[in-house]
Structures are given as C-alpha cells and as structure tokens.
C-alpha cells in the first residue's frame, strides 16, 4: 500500500489525506513535522532517501506531502498526487468523466495553487510560524528557493506583501462565491478534486482573514459542509496539535512575473 508522509491536516497534507479517505484507499500514514524541517533533516536516512529527488526538493509547494507508491516512486504536489490517486484507484472517481469538467477542475487547481495558497500561506506564516523559525534549521534546508522562502518568513513579511496576499484572497473569494452561489460544489453536482484543493488552501481563512471570509457566505457554507464530510473528519483526526489550521511552514512563493 502507498505511504503518505504528511504533517498536520492543513494545506496540502489535508488535501491529500481527505482524498485518500474519500476514495477509501488503504495507506500508511507517516507524520513529519514540516516546520521543524524534519523531511530534510532525515534526508540521508534510509526511510526518506527520496527527499533528495528532484521532484521532491524542487516541489513548488516547497513544504508539502510526499506519496511513496508501492512501486517506489515519490510523488509530490498535492493536487497532482490526488490526480494520481484518481487515475490509479478507480473507486469513487473524484472527477467527472467529461473533458470540460476536467478542464474546470484544472483551472481551479491552478488558481488555488498559484494564487490562493501562497496568499493564505503568507498570512498563516506571518501569524503562526515566523517566531518559530530558527537559523540553524534553515541552514540545513536543500535548495536556494526554500532557504529564501524560510528567511523571508523569518524576517517577517513586508506590509505590501501582506496587502498583496489579502488582495489575492479577495479575488479568489469573488470567484468561489460566484461558483458556489450556483451549486453546492465548485465543479458539477458532487464533490471533486477542486473542492479538496480549495479545502486545503482555505481551512485557515476563518482565522487568518476573518473579515474577508465573513463577507463570503457561500464559501462559508461550503467550508462547513466540507468539514462535515466523513473523509474530512477522518483527515482532521491525524492532527497532533489542537489547531491544525494554525500549522504553517514557509512555502509556495507568489508569482514573480505576470
């Protein structure tokens, strides 16, 4: 069975844990503390030797879950892991079969991954992670981008970075409000991978951007519905802290260009 290396059920870890449970896929859970740099400190260990692979080190989520498959592959990027699960395990498909719906899900994943997630992660790190980041841990991290992301979070974000994150959240909430006013889920009649991607990126919004989130009633109702799903409840039980929605590690940078 596959093994999922994940942290607290927030962001990408929540996205994949919930999809595994929604599809009823048996897997082994390995808890890794992302904020302590555990994935990278164990780089040379037998168990996490995969952490040196290009697609793991250069994953654009920066800190995210890794799915080790039975065949020995190490898969990263939460949305692409979920697409793999949907391709490889036929039960409970989480994408409609038609090409147009699949395009819609891809577009949501792109918007959420490139715009919403970096924004919520910036607000989350500013509120919950900055004070916990230590020079010694940062020096051992692989990759220039990762070290840069952690140092930026350690210094604290500039006012205009926070303002840009809030602007992106406003743009995305307008999109989710438009979609969820028309239906219970982002794409089609039932839950899809788009909803699990949004769930990971938005679980923390009631705490990190409460004023903005309160102004989005359809997205509020959607999040409440998602939290009630047995798969999401099961995913949230992997938490070791009292507040998984306060668990952030520096990650995904906002787009540098265009």
């Amino acid at each position, binding site marked *: 069975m596959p093994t999922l290396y994940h942290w607290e059920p927030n962001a990408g870890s929540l996205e994949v844990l919930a999809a595994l449970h929604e599809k009823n896929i048996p897997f082994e859970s390995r808890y890794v503390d992302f904020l302590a740099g555990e994935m990278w400190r164990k780089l040379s260990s037998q168990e996490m030797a995969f952490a040196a692979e290009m697609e793991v080190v*250069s994953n*654009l989520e920066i800190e995210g879950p890794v799915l080790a498959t039975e065949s020995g592959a190490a*898969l990263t990027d939460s949305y692409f892991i979920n697409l793999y699960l949907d391709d490889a395990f036929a039960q409970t498909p989480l994408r409609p079969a038609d090409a*147009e719906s699949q*395009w819609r899900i891809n577009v949501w994943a792109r918007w959420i991954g490139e715009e919403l997630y970096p924004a919520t992660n910036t607000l989350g790190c500013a509120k919950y992670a900055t004070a916990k980041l230590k020079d010694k841990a940062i020096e051992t991290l692989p990759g220039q981008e990762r070290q840069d992301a952690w140092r930026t979070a350690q210094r604290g974000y500039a006012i205009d970075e926070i303002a840009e994150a809030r602007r992106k959240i406003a743009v995305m909430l307008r999109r989710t409000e438009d979609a969820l006013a028309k239906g219970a889920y982002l794409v089609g009649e039932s839950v899809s991978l788009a909803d699990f991607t949004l769930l990971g990126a938005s679980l923390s919004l009631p705490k990190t951007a409460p004023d903005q989130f309160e102004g989005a009633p359809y997205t509020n109702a959607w999040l409440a519905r998602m939290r009630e799903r047995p798969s999401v409840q099961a995913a949230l039980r992997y938490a070791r802290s009292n507040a998984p929605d306060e668990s952030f590690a520096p990650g995904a940078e906002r787009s540098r260009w265009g």
Partner: protein
Amino acid sequence: MLKLYHWEPNANSGKPMLALMEKGVAFESHYLDLLNFDQHKPDYLAINPLGTIPALVHDGKVFTESTAIMEYVDAAFEGPSLTPVDPIERWRMRWWMKWFDQYLAKSASMLGWSVFVGPSVRARDPEELKAAIERIPMKERRVAWSKAIYNTFSKEELAESTRRLRDGIGKLEAALGARAWIAGATYSLGDANGFNLAYALPLAQPDVCNDEKTPAIMEWLRKIYERPATRKCWALARVPRMGERVKFLERT
C-alpha cells in the same frame, strides 16, 4: 467549430497550437498581435475578459489557461493520445508542466520581456502606451507591461531570473538524461509544453546550454523540432525574428 486565439507559436500561445497540430485537429486560427495590444481590445475582451492569450472557443464555450487547454484538447478530441497511460508517468507529465509554467517560464519570460517585448514597443507615443497599460484588466499583467515599457525591472529580479534559468537548465538536463521524454517512454503534452519554452534556452544561455554541456536537452529539442506537427506549428509564425529563431535546431 473550433477557434484558437493566439500570438506566435511560442510560449503560452504555442502550447495549444502544438497540441492541436499533434492531434491533427483542424482549427480556425485567430492571430492576435501581442505587440499591438490586440489582446486588450474590446473585441477580444468580449471573448476572454481577463485579456490573456491563448483562448480556445469550442462549440461556443471559451477555454483559457494554456496548459489546462492542452489537457482539454487531448481529452476532448480524437487523434493520438498525448497523455501517458501509466498513472505515475501522468503524474510526472503534470509535475513538469507546472515546473515549466510556474518556475522556468516565469524567469525566462521576465528576461524575454526585458530584452524583446519591452524594446519592441518602447519607442511608440507615450500617451498611447499609457492608455494601453490602463486598458489591461489584470493587475499582474499591468505590472508586467509597465515594467517592460518603462524598463523598471530591478537588477535583483533580473539576476534571480538568470540564476533560476541557469540552475533550471541543469535540472532539465538531469531529467532528460534519465528518460527519453519528460514523462517517461513516450512523447506527451509535457514535451510539447517544455519545447515552447526550452527551445530558447540554448539561445539565451549558450555558455551553459549547448551540445557539449547539455547533450540530452539538445537532442530532445531536435527530436521535437523534427516532428511534422512542430514544423506546421512554427510555419504560422509572423514575426520574422520568431520564425527564424528555431532554425538553429536543424541537424547539419
């Protein structure tokens, strides 16, 4: 009826063009001149209000986001499949397309706009340029155009883009040294996506991307360039400098 709104067969515009050519799907080509700001004019904004190119119109529905369009084209039309059968190879194809789009292309594009797009339009009437920037719907695109037109890139961001491009060349060479194509054993959307960006690497960074230092990248580019679909796609180039650019990939 299928219509594609696109610029040159390069970067984002080239991605769905090449996918359609590989599938053998006929489409009505609508060329928008990016350097003339056609993509921000009312006619096109009526089709794609965000003013980004490319856009595909299929049976009256509008599809945007170039890589998502490629996957749509492969799923919606007959023709040879451009997605691997093996789920792990599919994952790898998607992973690399995102890395091309969101990592390597951001840096390559920033540098390209600073040396080509900006200088191509800068000499025009300042009032006309100011009005052109104000018409752009997305803030991110307004910032990009403004930097290109007024040449306000910071030294640091250009240096970081150059570092990422050179570092990325090494990563791409390692990946292509291990596999025939980017996802595995077969040509896929990932290769078509990558070509649109990577053909420019030996031109932009010749000291680190060449036959001697990156033989796997060079062979991969030539193999893609030789495909009939790629030839057909690049025959649609209108900017002379663009059409000429890929010719260095001819085998001698």
